[in-house]
C-alpha cells in the first residue's frame, strides 16, 4: 500500500510537538532537573503534611507549651522525637514547616495565577485597543510599578487585616502590573505579524484573533514571569509575616516561624529560625532554577 505519493516517513523532527521538544530541552540541564526534583519533593511533602507529621501545629490542643524550644532530636511530652526541634510555643518545627510550606505555596501560586489572568487581560486590551485606552492603562501600570512592592503590600495588609485571603489580595495588587506590561510588550510585537493580518483576511472576529491567535503566542514570556513572580510572592508573604502584618501567630507560615525564632538567634537556639529559613530558601531557589531553565528553553535566541 506504499505508493510514493502517500508515504510520509515521520522523522523525529517532524513528529515532535513543540511541547515535547520543550520538555526534552528542559531536561538537558542538570541543575534545572535538580531544581525541579527539589520543587516537586517540596510540593509532595507539603501536600502530604497531615499524614506524615506527628503534630498539627494549628490545633492548639495538640501543642504543649512544656515542649517549647527543644533542641533538634529531643523527645517531646507526647513521646515523638522533634528532629528539627520545637519553637517558642512548643510546636514541632518539622510539622510547622510542612504546614507552613502549604500556606506559602498556596499563597504564591494562587496570587500568581490570579494576577497573571488579570494582568494578561488588561495587557491584551491595552495592546489591541491602542490609543487613549492603552495610554491610560499603561500609565496606571507605570504608577503601580514605581511603588515598592513591599510598601504597597504592607499598606494593604495593614488596612485589610490578617489572613490568607487578604495576603493573596495584596499580592495580586502588587503583581498584576508585571504581567500586564509583559503581555502588552509581546502582544504589540505579535499584533503586527503577518499571521494576524492573515487571520483578519479570513474574516475571524477580533476577540478570536486576540485570544486564540495573539495570546498563545505571548505565553512563553508569561510562563517565565509567572515562575519568577511566584517565588517573589512567596518571599513577599514571608517578609510580611516576618514583619508581623501577614499571617496570625495561630497559623504559622514560614515567615512567622522565622520571625518567632529571630529573638532566640543570639542565645544559641538557631533551629527555630534556621530550618524554616532553609525551607523557604530551598523553595525559592528551586522555583527560580526551574524558571531560569524555562526562560532559556523558550528563548529562541539562546537555542544551540
Amino acid at each position, binding site marked *: 500500500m506504499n505508493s510514493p*505519493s*502517500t*508515504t*510520509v516517513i515521520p522523522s523525529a*523532527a*517532524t513528529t515532535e*510537538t*513543540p511541547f515535547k521538544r520543550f520538555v526534552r530541552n528542559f531536561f538537558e540541564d542538570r541543575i534545572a532537573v535538580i531544581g525541579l526534583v527539589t520543587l516537586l519533593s517540596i510540593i509532595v511533602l507539603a501536600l502530604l503534611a497531615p499524614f506524615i507529621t506527628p503534630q498539627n501545629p494549628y490545633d492548639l490542643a495538640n501543642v504543649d507549651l512544656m515542649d517549647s524550644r527543644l533542641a533538634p532530636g529531643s523527645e517531646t511530652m507526647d513521646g515523638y522525637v522533634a528532629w528539627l526541634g520545637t519553637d517558642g510555643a512548643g510546636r514541632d518545627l518539622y510539622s510547622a514547616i510542612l504546614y507552613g510550606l502549604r500556606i506559602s505555596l498556596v499563597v504564591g501560586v494562587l496570587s500568581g495565577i490570579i494576577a497573571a489572568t488579570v494582568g494578561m487581560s488588561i495587557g491584551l486590551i491595552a495592546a489591541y485597543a491602542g490609543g487613549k485606552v492603552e495610554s491610560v492603562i499603561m500609565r496606571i501600570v507605570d504608577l503601580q510599578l514605581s511603588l515598592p512592592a513591599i510598601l504597597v503590600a504592607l499598606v494593604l495588609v495593614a488596612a485589610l487585616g490578617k489572613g490568607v485571603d487578604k495576603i493573596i489580595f495584596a499580592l495580586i495588587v502588587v503583581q498584576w502590573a508585571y504581567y500586564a506590561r509583559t503581555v502588552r510588550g509581546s502582544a504589540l510585537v505579535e499584533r503586527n*505579524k*503577518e*499571521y494576524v*493580518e*492573515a*487571520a*483578519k*483576511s*479570513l*474574516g*475571524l*472576529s477580533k476577540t*478570536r484573533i486576540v485570544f*486564540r*491567535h495573539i495570546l*498563545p*503566542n505571548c*505565553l512563553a514570556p508569561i510562563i517565565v514571569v509567572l515562575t519568577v513572580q511566584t517565588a517573589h510572592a512567596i518571599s513577599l508573604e514571608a517578609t510580611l509575616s516576618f514583619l508581623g502584618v501577614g499571617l496570625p501567630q495561630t497559623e504559622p507560615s514560614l515567615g512567622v516561624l522565622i520571625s518567632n525564632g529571630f529573638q532566640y538567634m543570639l542565645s544559641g537556639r538557631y533551629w527555630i529560625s534556621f530550618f524554616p529559613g532553609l525551607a523557604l530558601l530551598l523553595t525559592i531557589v528551586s522555583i527560580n532554577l526551574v524558571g531560569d531553565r524555562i526562560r532559556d528553553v523558550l528563548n529562541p535566541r539562546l537555542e544551540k
Partner: protein
Amino acid sequence: MDVLTVENLATHFMTRAGVIKAVDGVSFNVAQGEVLGLVGESGSGKSVTGYSIMGLVDPPGEIVSGSIRISGREVVGLPEEEMQKLRGKEVAMIFQDPMMTLNPVLRIDTQMVEAILAHEKVSRKAALARAKQALEKVGIPAASERLTSYPHQFSGGMRQRVAIAIALLNSPKLIIADEPTTALDVTIQSQILAEIQQLCSETGTALIWITHDLTVVAGLAHRIAVMYAGRIVELGNVDDVLDNPIHPYTRGLLGSLPSNAEHGQPLEQIPGSTPSLGRLPPGCAFSPRCRHAAEICREKVPENQSFPGDRQARCHFPLIYKASEPLSQDA
C-alpha cells in the same frame, strides 16, 4: 459580470511628515475567472491597493475617496462587521511570506476549521473533511496526517500551499495574492504558479496577482496593470503591454530584464530612483526619470487615456502612438 470594480480609489496615510498618497486615483476591474497582474516597484502602492480591497488598511491609512465594488456591492464605508463577513468568504488573500502567515502555535486543522466556521455553521467533522479536501486539491500528500501538523513541520513551499488551501476553503470569488512566490525558490515558484492557475480556472475564481516580477506575470496573467507612485500608469492585455509598452516606465522595466538584453551588453536601466510618495513632483511622477519628458510632463499630471485594444495609459507622449494620430480622450 465583473467580480471587482475599483474606481478612482485613493488611499492616503496621514503621517506626521504629511499626507502620503500611497494609492491615488486607481481604477480597474476584474472579470470572473480573470487573472490580473498588478506590477510595480516597492512602494508603488500595489499592496496598499490589495489591502484597500480587503478593507484592511490600518490607521494612519485611510480610504479617502473612490469606490470598490465586490460582485456589484459597494464596500467602501461598509461597517466593520459587514466587512468581516466578506473577508475570507467573497475575497481571500494570500500573503508573501508563508513562514509568517500561519500561526506558529496552532495546528493546521485548527486554523483551517476556524476559517470555515467563521463563515458557515457546519459541524467540526464536516469542516475537517473540507479542510482535508482543500489540502488534497493543492497537492499536499497524506493530507489527513498533515492536518494535525504544526506550521514549522512544513517546508516553505508546502506552507504556501497550505495558505492557498486556506484561501480557497470558502470558495471566494476573488483571491488577492500579494507576492506569494517571492519568498520561494524558483522551482517551487513555478509549481505553485501552475497549480494556482489551474485551481483558478477550475473554480472560476478571479485572481489579482501582486508582484514586482514581470516574468511571473507574463506566464500567468490575462491582463496587467503597471503601477508607479500610487497610480496605474498602464493597463492592458498582458501580451500587448509586454510586447508594445505604451508608457516609458513599462518599457524601462522590460528593458531592465536580463532575458531581453543582448549578451555582453550592459542592462538598460531606469535612471534615478523611486520618488518619495510624500514629495511627488507636480506633474507626471515619472517625469524626472523619463527620457521623453517635456515641459508639460513636469507641470500637468497626465490623464488616463484609452488606446485601441482595450488598453489604457497615463502619458503625455505615449510610445507607440505618435501625437499626430487621433487619440480618444478619456476623462
